[in-house]
């Protein structure tokens, strides 16, 4: 698993208070019991971690962890390096 995927999974695991090894790229947000509040929280943490901005329209189409990783990979390629301080 690449770095972006493992970091995304770590963010989701922390937000949901579940072990990272219970999350795979095929996991759907529905399976992970990610509700609307979780989704907005996780999206913000991902934006902060990768220094990207997820477009509103993309939020509605992300169904799996893999979808999120793919989106972050594309946005990261076009973004400046992530900040190193919180």
């Amino acid at each position: 698993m690449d770095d972006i995927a493992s970091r995304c999974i770590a963010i989701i695991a922390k937000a949901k208070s579940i072990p990272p090894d219970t999350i795979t790229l095929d996991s759907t947000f529905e399976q992970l019991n990610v509700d609307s509040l979780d989704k907005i929280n996780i999206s913000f943490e991902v934006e902060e971690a990768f220094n990207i901005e997820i477009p509103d329209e993309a939020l509605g189409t992300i169904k799996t962890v893999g979808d999120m990783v793919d989106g972050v990979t594309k946005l990261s390629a076009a973004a400046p390096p992530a900040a190193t301080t919180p």
Partner: protein
Amino acid sequence: MNRVVVTGLGCITPIGNSIADFQTSLFAGNSGISRIAAVSDAPDGLPGVRYTQAAQILDFDPVEDLASGVIASTNRNAQFAIIAARQAARQANLVAHHAPDDIAIIMGCACGGRSSEEHEVKGLYTRDARAHPLTIVRTMASAGASQISIDLKITGPALDISTACSSGTHAIGLAFHMVRSGMVTSAITGGHEAPLSFGFYRAWDSMRVVSPTRCRPFAANRDGMTLGEGAAMFAIETLESAQARNAPIFAEIVGFGMSADASHITQPLVEGAATAMRKAIKDAGASPEEVGYINAHGTGTQANDATEAAAIHQVFGAHGSQIPVSSTKSLHGHSIGATGAIEALATVLGLKENLLPITAGVTEVDSTLNLDVIIGSPRKTTPKLAISNSLAFGGLNAVLAFRPFR
């Protein structure tokens, strides 16, 4: 008018996260005041203040009780509120026995989601950061009332009262009057606060009213207050509904008095405190001679304790020096909007157990105050009537009156 009784209790406090633990600490005199732990967003976790102690809740983990989405959208104070309200509602089995729109939720919270706000503001002013999308819902002071209504599916009147250090007392008093008048048949009411943020510590430090060590209310050598956090909740309802289903009854709420000093934004006024006490006793249909316990506001500052003592003497005359008085802030600290509710909880438990809690950490009472301050060990007695005082900055005073239920 309805008689109003307390049928459920809940708390998250520095001396216990359950009523059983709180009661044990209360009567054992075990203080929850300890060295200030690492403070979020402060350099190296150090608040840089002249005092070292606060009444913190060091063993609270919301993951045990709350869903991740709720944790993400709440500040620590609202998390206290939800869990304490669940305890009270469960003990009273309130929701099963009252229509959802016949239950009120009246909360006291003055500081809101202060630590969340400070964290976002730090990012904004230091690196032009984006604000977390849940900042608004974390920081609004009414979040506790909203979250309890969502959690318990209660649809009646729900609101937050912000009157600084009297918030929790005002909330319980309003809820009491709503149930007594028949506006609703029951209520979840109390106070919640988690204000121990970097900026909060520093702002209080600048006021020079915090004890360098720990608060010693009414002591000859008192030197200030001790900040705290926590929540206390009550399920209250009509006596008729409680008796109809044999609900546990911890005490009866019989009076509520309010006043404003209209004098000074920090200096308390004897007349304002005295007026609130008189009105609470009158509201209870009682006489001052019936009062057998005062849970004082008792912050441990020179100004508060001297003013409160003078007000007690003004209201009770010769009886004033005979009434057992304690300030349980010496155990659970001063948690601003929550403290009045926590003190009301101590008062109710004292009436239920016929045992009045001590003012901890005091070895010599200030004799000039001429009060019967309970120190050393709890006092075994059965008051006919007890009052719980809250005297807030800005001169907003609130007093509750309780009777034991036999």
